[in-house]
């Protein structure tokens, strides 16, 4: 690893990541503690509502996340401080006031979800079986969101000579756009059907990243679309949606069911715990999809060296630990580690050599 990344980079990445992991751990523990207390005492805020049972449930749900936000604020500020120490981007204003407004957007989604669950639970014929119709509704909304999101993101068109060729090779013809406002190099593919797009974050199309690396990144993202990863993600979400909704119905039964506002604080706690518990499984799925996209990029570009350089540069630029500890890998890594990705480029070289006549 030293030869690959350099001893200094490796040391910086390991040290930076080790403390970042502690922040995550601290934030998660605080989140669970706050939600645990809120599940116990949150009902008292019912009196702050004049919105009827469903509206009151929404208020209680929002307050739960608001309290979590407040409790995690020190960790958010510390994270920015830690990033600054390593020369990485980060804004205190964004971590505090900016997130305060972002909380509002989160609340909108939460309110929609609670409105669906609570209204269904309050229908007499459905009652405790609300999770059965609710899960497909959530899946439908996820599909709708995935479909609409690309149009909401904007961005500027990305022009490069290799785009058309890559699209031909991957058999995916979609707009490629660059979005600014981010400090880190990254890219993603999103959208369904006619809304499919690839978005490159501005830092990745700027130095020190080279056009060859950008080509590899674009091929990776087109690979996601070529292999229908967005639909597959929706499918995985659907698989999770039913059991999670069922667990919520089960957990809230003792508090009168999901139709009762007093059950919402408990539902929020259960939801967060289940999400945490499901993280390893979700990461396994995600890592599999990412590995497939990497392989697709290697096949499309025939440029394993560019991939290798790209992943090496990621370690330098983002201080991502190339070889994290097992629990980090299980809970936090939704991509293969940098070391695994570099190994894949080497494997592809051997594979391509074996395939060639």
């Amino acid at each position, binding site marked *: 690893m030293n030869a690959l990344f350099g001893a200094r980079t490796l040391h910086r990445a390991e040290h930076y990541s080790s403390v970042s992991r502690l922040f995550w751990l601290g934030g998660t523990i605080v989140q669970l503690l706050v939600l645990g207390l809120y599940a116990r005492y949150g009902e008292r*805020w019912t*009196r*702050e*509502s*004049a*919105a*009827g049972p469903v*509206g*009151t449930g*929404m*208020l209680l749900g*929002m*307050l739960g996340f*608001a*309290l979590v936000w*407040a409790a995690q604020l020190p960790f958010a500020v510390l994270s920015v401080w830690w990033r600054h120490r390593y020369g990485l981007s980060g804004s205190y204003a964004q971590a505090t006031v900016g997130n*305060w*407004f972002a*909380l*509002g*957007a989160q*609340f*909108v989604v939460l*309110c929609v979800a609670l409105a669906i669950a609570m209204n269904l639970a309050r229908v007499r014929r459905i009652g405790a079986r609300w999770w059965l119709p609710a899960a497909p509704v959530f899946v439908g909304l996820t599909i709708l969101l995935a479909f609409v999101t690309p149009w909401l993101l904007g961005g500027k068109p990305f022009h490069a000579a290799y785009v058309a060729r890559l699209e031909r090779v991957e058999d995916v013809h979609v707009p490629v756009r660059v979005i600014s406002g981010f400090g880190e190099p990254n890219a993603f593919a999103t959208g369904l059907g006619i809304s499919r797009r690839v978005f490159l974050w501005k830092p990745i199309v700027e130095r020190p990243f080279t056009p060859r690396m950008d080509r590899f990144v674009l091929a990776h993202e087109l690979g996601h679309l070529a292999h229908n990863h967005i639909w597959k993600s929706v499918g995985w979400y659907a698989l999770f949606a039913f059991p999670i909704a069922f667990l919520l119905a089960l957990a809230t039964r003792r508090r009168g069911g999901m139709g009762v506002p007093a059950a919402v604080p408990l539902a929020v706690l259960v939801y967060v715990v289940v999400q945490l518990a499901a993280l390893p499984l979700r990461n396994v799925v995600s890592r599999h999809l990412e590995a497939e996209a990497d392989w697709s990029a290697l096949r499309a570009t025939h440029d394993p060296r560019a991939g290798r350089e790209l992943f090496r540069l990621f370690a330098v630029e983002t201080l991502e630990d190339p070889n994290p500890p097992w629990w980090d890998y299980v809970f936090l890594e939704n991509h293969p580690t940098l070391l695994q990705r570099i190994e894949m480029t080497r494997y592809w070289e051997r594979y391509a050599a074996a395939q060639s006549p």
Partner: protein
Amino acid sequence: MSEPPVRLVVEDDFRRNRVTVFFRLLLAIPHLIWFFLWTIVAAVAAIVNWFATLIAGRPPRGLHNFLCSYVRYSVHLSAYLYLVGNPYPGFLGEEGEYPIDVELPGEPQLQSRWKTLLRIVLAIPALLIGGVLGGGVGGSFGFLFNRGGRGRSTSNGGGFTGGGLLAGICAFLGWFACLATGQMPKGLRDAGAYGIGYAAQVRAYTLLLTDRYPNTDPTTILASVARPPRHPVHVVGDAHDLRRSRLTVFFRIPLAIPHLVWLYVWSYVVAVVGILNWFATLVTGRPPRPFHRFLCAYFRYQLHVYAFLTIAANPFPGFTGRAGSYPLDLVLPAEPQRQSRWRTFFRLVLVIPAWLVSLGAAVALFIAAICTWFAALATGSAPWGLRNLMAYALRYQAQTNAYVYLLTDAYPHASPLEGEETPQLPEPGLSAA
């Protein structure tokens, strides 16, 4: 609560002389020059008074009387400029010489030294609100620090008389009304008097004439003014419901975002229904009942959301705008009312003055909401005066919206006072019969 130490006295009728109204700004020039000079002396006196009060715990009688005259004179001059009063004021600020007058403490009062020391800091919220309603002492002294000399104004925007967006807008509109009818509309007069009364309180507080913090409650400031008849669109609610949850106050904006999104979505439908309603009312002379009910629900909901957002009310509102579901509620005509086709046709033109007043009220609402946010976080309750100022601003906006969307034919009433129930008069047609 005990009697307020600074009380506005309004003994004026609504008659205005068209000639003096037309030339009002020019006629006021000698007063403005005099006020400018007086303000320089008052600034020096205020600083001396501050030190003296810090030492003795009570302002010296001579300085107290001088500053009282200054505040009284500023009220007379503001009233004249803002068309709240008709006669030309005297130059000495004597008590009882002008129909719009202010009663101030006759004797210097004992003052807390801590509050005296921090007076200018403590006065900042009041100065901000005063600047929007009717000007404050900061506006009066502002020119002393305005070395460039730009941005001075004689009637509005922080000039010699202390600015005041709401009073300025009312004066601007009142100028046209007075020229046309020879009368100052009561709503505009009351709103102007309200701003001037509050500004007088701010001046008295800042200049250490009283220890009592300025109060924006309209009924307190306009205690000597008769209430207008009740408007068909008005707000109801318990004005003493001042308890606020600190948690929901802190997160008020994010908590309101789902409501704002819903309001935004709903507003698109309302725009379409509003246009259809306009055509239907033009044809039939009365809005169709389904449209009327739909629009009523929307504007009721809007009031609930704005009341929640601005902390004028405490609980989280529902999403449907159901009548009676919120502690600060909007009363609208239950049934569609017959409307004049002419006034319906020109509704968007006729509403322009109301929109202007609504703008002033909205700025006051915004500032009051910010002040309430801090106060409610600190004390767990909303200040009584600010709550009532916000209720006034919300009421006026609701009346304007109801007028635009043909829920009522009654023009918005700018008076900050709640309307009074008047005995039901027989309809003109019936009495003729």
